[in-house]
């Protein structure tokens, strides 16, 4: 076992205290010898500590053929290690090798042979594999790690995968933080993907749940159309085809490359002793060998230079979405774009019962309240790590015969006014006030704060949270006019128009729109991805 020289790491430990305007962040920062970052935020309160681990890996690190791997891997990380989740490691591994051998043959027959291969042969292998899986159960301790965390009072127990980051979460009583360090460092090195094939089924069920969410399949297409090249174009869940065909070897390769300490941040927020946390981190995370450095994503999004439009229909509410390519995080224009989003329509996103937030944006006042053309409308600016997007969403008032295209026209008219005259001083100040207050508020929520600070660390460093707020305070109306002109252009946009397809007697009556033109193709069955069932 390799213990890294304590001195080297200790030299790098430093306490940092940074502030912007009224907001202060008290972050203790420490880099282990293997490159892993430990962040600590002491916070008085109940004796519990939010313990999160984040890896700089998400769906953008995938490629066609293995989409959905980052998320599938997150599921597999709960299946045990050499010491967790198994009674006889060698016997379990031996069976896994035989299962993989069978499944490799089966996948080849099924997925490489035109027409899907010989069904009897496939069924035979499938049966054999299932027999082995049943035999293997005697060695498996189900959800060992999860149970151990729960037994020790773990709450907020979960994991999540995004485009850019994968996180593993637990909040423990303050005296039990070491448990998390032991278990997380263990699975960073030693994860075993037990029950791989049944867990793939679970993930495909998770995808089906999303497919049953009205509008999901359309929004998946919209996203895929908006990005021509960037890997942000596929959903975190991945394409069903890839989920079906991905192998344990694919996943092992993905895991080995990305789950390394130099690609990882651990963060602790709560009532804690920073020195004790650092000592434990050295002991447990410090023993993980450093991995090869990871190259940033190569494929950025090329300029669009053409207008994109997408039309769809199905079981979700009639709606309009307008998307614009925007700069990535760290670009100077993001501050003005953020203020623009607030001024135009932040907070109006919710439309179900319990909708939240004041609807004081320009578009809300104009289109929801004054002209009564929209049920709701919202505007958001999302600067992501490699490519940014500015988004409008709206639902028209069908009872008033309003169509998505009418709202689209209104939004363009408003954008035109902003390109000419910008915003009012009050609107700009409101955007600044809101951003600052929201940051202060987020400091009071330990789990959310941990996520924000750690993901910022994996991007441009945690201090970027405060630097961005300072940038925001400097925005002038000239900036607003400039960015409005630069990004709100047709050949930088995708407009998606979705019509609810009514069933039965409702059809064609309530929508307040003309029926299909003569000779239009008959209604298509609602899209389910090809071969959605096994």
């Amino acid at each position, binding site marked *: 076992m390799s213990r890294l020289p304590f001195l080297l790491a200790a030299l790098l430990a430093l306490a940092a205290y940074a502030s912007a305007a009224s907001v202060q962040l008290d972050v203790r920062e420490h880099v282990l010898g293997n490159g892993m970052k430990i962040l600590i935020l002491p916070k008085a309160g109940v*004796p519990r500590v939010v313990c999160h681990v984040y890896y700089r890996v998400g769906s953008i690190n995938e490629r066609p053929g293995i989409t959905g791997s980052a998320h599938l891997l997150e599921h597999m990380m709960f299946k045990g290690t050499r010491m967790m989740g198994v009674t006889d490691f060698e016997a379990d591994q031996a069976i896994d090798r035989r299962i993989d051998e069978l499944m490799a043959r089966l996948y080849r027959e099924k997925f490489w042979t035109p027409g899907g291969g010989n069904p009897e042969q496939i069924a035979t292998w499938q049966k054999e594999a299932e027999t082995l899986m049943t035999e293997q159960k005697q060695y498996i301790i189900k959800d060992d790690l999860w149970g151990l965390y729960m037994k020790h*009072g773990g709450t907020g127990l979960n994991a999540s995968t995004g485009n850019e980051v994968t996180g593993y979460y637990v909040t423990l009583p303050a005296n039990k933080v070491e*448990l998390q360090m*032991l*278990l997380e460092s263990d699975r960073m090195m*030693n994860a075993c993907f037990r029950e791989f094939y049944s867990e793939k089924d679970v993930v495909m069920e998770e995808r*089906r749940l999303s497919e049953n969410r009205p509008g999901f399949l359309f929004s998946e297409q919209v996203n895929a159309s908006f990005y021509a090249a960037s890997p942000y174009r596929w959903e975190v869940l991945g394409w069903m085809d890839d989920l079906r065909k991905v192998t344990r070897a694919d996943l*092992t390769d993905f895991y080995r490359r990305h789950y390394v300490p130099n690609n990882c941040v651990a963060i602790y927020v709560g009532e804690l002793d920073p020195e004790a946390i650092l000592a434990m981190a050295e002991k447990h995370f410090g023993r993980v060998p450093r991995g090869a450095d990871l190259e940033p994503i190569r494929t950025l999004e090329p300029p669009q230079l053409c207008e994109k439009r997408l039309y769809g229909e199905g079981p979700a509410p009639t709606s309009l979405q307008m998307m614009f390519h925007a700069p990535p995080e760290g670009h100077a224009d993001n501050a003005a774009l953020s203020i623009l989003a607030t001024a135009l329509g932040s907070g109006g996103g919710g*439309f179900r019962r319990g909708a939240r937030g004041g609807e004081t944006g320009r578009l809300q006042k104009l289109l929801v309240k004054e002209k009564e053309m929209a049920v709701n409308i919202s505007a958001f600016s999302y600067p992501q790590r490699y490519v940014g997007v500015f988004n409008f969403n709206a639902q028209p008032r069908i009872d008033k015969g309003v169509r998505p295209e009418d709202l689209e026209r209104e939004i363009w008219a408003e954008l035109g006014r902003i390109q000419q005259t910008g915003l009012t001083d009050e609107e700009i100040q409101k955007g600044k006030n809101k951003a600052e207050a929201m940051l202060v508020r987020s400091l009071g929520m330990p789990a959310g704060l941990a996520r924000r600070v750690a993901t910022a660390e994996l991007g441009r460093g945690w201090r970027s949270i405060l630097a961005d707020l300072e940038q925001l305070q400097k925005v002038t109306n000239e900036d607003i006019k400039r960015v409005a002109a630069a990004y709100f252009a047709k050949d930088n946009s995708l407009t998606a128009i979705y019509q609810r397809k009514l069933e039965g007697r409702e059809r064609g009556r309530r929508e307040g729109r003309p029926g299909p033109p003569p000779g239009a193709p008959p209604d298509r069955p609602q899209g389910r991805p090809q071969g959605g069932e096994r």
Partner: protein
Amino acid sequence: MNKILCLITIVSLLTGAALFVRAERPSELKFPPLKYEPPDPAAYKMTFANGLRGYAMEDRGLPLFTIAAQVQFGDIHVPGDKQGLGGLLGRTLVQGGTKSRDGETIEERIDFLGGMLNFNVGEQTSTLTLSVLSKDLDEGLELFFDVLLNPEFREGPFNLAKARLIEELRQANDQPSEILAREYQRLLYGDHPLSWRPTRQTYEALTAADLKAAHARYFRPGNVILSVSGDFARTELPGKINRLIAAWPDQPVEQPRISREFPSPEPGVYFIQKKINQGYVSLGHLGLEENNPDYYAVQVMNFILGGGSFSSRITTKVRSDEGLSYNQGSRFAYRWGFPGTFSGYVQTKSATVGYAVSLILDEIRRIRREPVSDEELELAINFYLESFSSGFESPQGTMTTFAEMELVGKPMDYYQTFRKHIREVTKARVQEVANKYLQPERLAIMIVGDWEPCNQGGEKWPGPLDKLGPVHRVPLIDPLTGAEVKD
């Protein structure tokens, strides 16, 4: 082919040998002792003018101030012909303005300050919440009490809120999970305030006078409890608040009499047709009231059955062993003043709906038949003991919890005695409450899904679904009209 096998073998060998580093085992870890006592509600209780009560905790860490008013008024207080009143009140209490300010002025000001002012109507209580930077405390309090005491439900915002709520009814059948939740509640509670829903007609019939009447009846100091936290001085709070509520007369609130009679739906399958690729299932019957003394044993029992996520039997069986679903488990929902519900639940692809249900039924029968294991009991009890302090992580959350306990009449020593009650749960008690509160012979199994493939089943559990009991086809209700949706 051989290359693939070779690659797999290499990877397996690597994972099996070279890359493993020996780790200390979790059982070898030594944890220092930790004592925790929950906050005592009495230490935070405050009284204000006119019989208004509250709980307040200073928390000077951040320059923030939060205040909430919980009102004992919810959807169950709304008569049948006024359905939708709760939702409409929720949308217009702030937006509809007050006697002296219009709604837009209030929202603009709060938004400009970076604050939040929300009102939400729930099943039994409603809550107005304000959060502002503490430098804006006085201005925020003034707006907060103006909205709470003097709402005006002005015509413009009132009509707009109504039209938008009616538009949103169109979406009520979009999500299978929403259809299931609504119809399952209707099946178990029958024709009752707990299951009534608004339609276009009931929304249209509502007037601003209805909202004013409800407000005048229920928004009285004695029927409201405040919860306050953040950067403020407790000693100064009564002075600030009493000035703002001086003209708010208390008067006793007459609570409506709500029926406690519920139907017993015939056991069996209740199927709602929707063309989707999964079946959404809830199966169960009425359960316990929140103050039932068996609460603690039932919580531990259900943790083992299907409430303890991955550490529960239903998740292990249905998800982990069989890979049938992403969401599955069981839950007891508790209600104050009414029996809650027991439900097993799962969402799985159409062909495995019957199989998944049969596995859940097996687990319900097994926990009645056999004692749970020592390990299962230890894990469940330890979870409740060790996670206990998590309920008090947020000062505002703690104050809100205390306020709600007092509002609904829950014993105020609930948290002081919670861990003692949990420690007392035994294997025998778990089996006893499983037999008392899980009634397989009474189960109603409700499924939202596509009939043909669900009924056909799959290899491990071929249909038809009536193997689970008599099948009732439940029509889908058009939420706009309240009538059946016809094909």
